[in-house]
């Protein structure tokens, strides 16, 4: 009955339901998470927040969720996975999180995918130069790249705009672009849960919808 709001299945899940790195798939996650908030406590950037009602309904109340308006997920940190007592966030190493070493085949752990809202982005919508999201992107090569374009702005001046776009192949959903976007209330760069690597069905690109054991 609690689950009847359909937030768990893959058809109607909330774009805001971004789980910590290493989390198991959502249905499994709710079988394990006991809402003890230890992950929220150790998170160095404060990005982990207790889930409210709008993300996951009553069933997921006070489970951990990432809010990229508050912080971002540090690249070289897997503390939340090491304190989880029940394995809702399984224990991962930084190597596994970033997809280095023996995890190269599997690739980095993706929390979601970033998007650019072109009607709120300063270069796209307002012809004001800004490359904050491209600069802060920690992935190499960068998951946010730019089109360079020379335009005349409202005042008749020639400006060079670097209009950002996302490369979903590279984006891991760390959310630093959303955190640092100067349009702070509803950031023009934003991360949603689609593409998260914990669920096969929620992956964005077909080429990643392969079973890691097969490849």
């Amino acid at each position, binding site marked *: 009955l*609690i*689950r009847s709001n359909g937030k768990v299945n893959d058809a109607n899940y909330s774009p805001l339901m971004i789980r910590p790195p290493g989390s198991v798939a959502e*249905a*499994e996650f*709710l*079988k*394990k*998470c*006991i*809402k*003890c*908030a*230890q992950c*929220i*406590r*150790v*998170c*160095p*950037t*404060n990005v982990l*927040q*207790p*889930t*409210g009602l709008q993300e996951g309904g009553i*069933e997921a*109340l*006070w489970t951990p969720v990432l*809010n990229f308006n*508050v*912080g971002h997920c*540090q690249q070289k*940190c897997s*503390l939340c996975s*090491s*304190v*989880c*007592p*029940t*394995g809702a966030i399984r*224990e991962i190493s930084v190597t596994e999180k970033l997809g280095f070493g023996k995890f190269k085949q599997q690739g980095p752990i993706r929390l979601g995918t970033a998007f650019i809202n072109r009607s709120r982005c300063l270069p796209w919508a307002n012809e004001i130069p800004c490359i904050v999201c491209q600069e802060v992107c920690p992935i190499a090569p960068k998951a946010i790249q730019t089109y360079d374009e020379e335009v005349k702005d409202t005042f008749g001046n020639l400006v060079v705009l670097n209009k950002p776009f996302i490369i979903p192949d590279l984006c891991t959903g760390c959310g630093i672009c959303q*955190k*640092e976007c100067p349009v702070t209330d509803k950031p023009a760069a934003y991360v949603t849960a689609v593409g998260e690597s914990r669920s096969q069905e929620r992956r964005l690109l077909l080429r990643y919808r392969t079973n890691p054991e097969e490849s």
Partner: protein
Amino acid sequence: MKTLFRLTNIRIISQVVFLGLFLFAVWASWTTRIQGYPVSRFLEIDLLVALSTALSTGHIYRFLGWSILLLLLTLLFGRVFCNWMCPLGTLHQFFGWLFNIRSVKERQDQNRYQPRQIIKYSILFILLIIAASGSVQIGLLDPIALLHRSVSTGISVIWDSVMSGSFTNLQLAPGTAERIFTGSFWIGIVFVTIIVVNIWHPRFFCRTLCPLGALLGLLSVFPLFRIHRDLELCTDCDLCLTRCEGACSPEGSIRLSECVVCMNCIDECPENALSFSLPRQISTPVSLHPISIVATLSLPGSLVSSDFH
């Protein structure tokens, strides 16, 4: 009688130690302080966590098997966890004691068994059914999870604001000015409510709501060690009720599932009629008057047998 080495003093030391350990674990689970040592031991010996996740997933994760220690402890001594170890229980007892301005008589009435204490078994039952059907909700009421959540997202915000200006900026990652937690108001309200209720109903949470207490209560129906009352010495003065933590009717036939083994009744008893010991031949009138046994055997249902049971 009033010596320093009373069991209750040892109990209070144990409670302080475990509360301290819990607070240390909370303090230590911080980015700059966590050094690889485990800080979630409390949750890992929490039998309810192990049981409900085992029900929902079919296996026991990592260190949750340590809860077998708590299981054995409970089978041996009853609900000692509740009044010797549980940090939330300690807080409840402390606040109950702090706000206790009642007379002895009122306190005795407060600590009598009340039928509403059955509610916790219903809560446990419902939560376990929900867990078995694939959604673990025990964290909402499990004492350790509840306390940790409240301390780390509700109380620590206040702590942060007290400490800000001294070394807060060292503790947080660059770019994080202060910590906020969405919904921490409601988490805090739940916590403050269950603490404040202690003013009117001592240990309301432990007696009426706690699902872990209910689980341990079900396990401690036949503990090896238990509180015994010597009917010969007892004068039915009801003094044992004055500081009874579990509302487990020590004045009558003790309800072992409610008893949290606080040992206060042993302290209070002026006749030394109560003891915490191994099962033994309870000195009921039956054993003292052999004739009544004969009467019981020969005349089942007679007045004699109903008087001496």
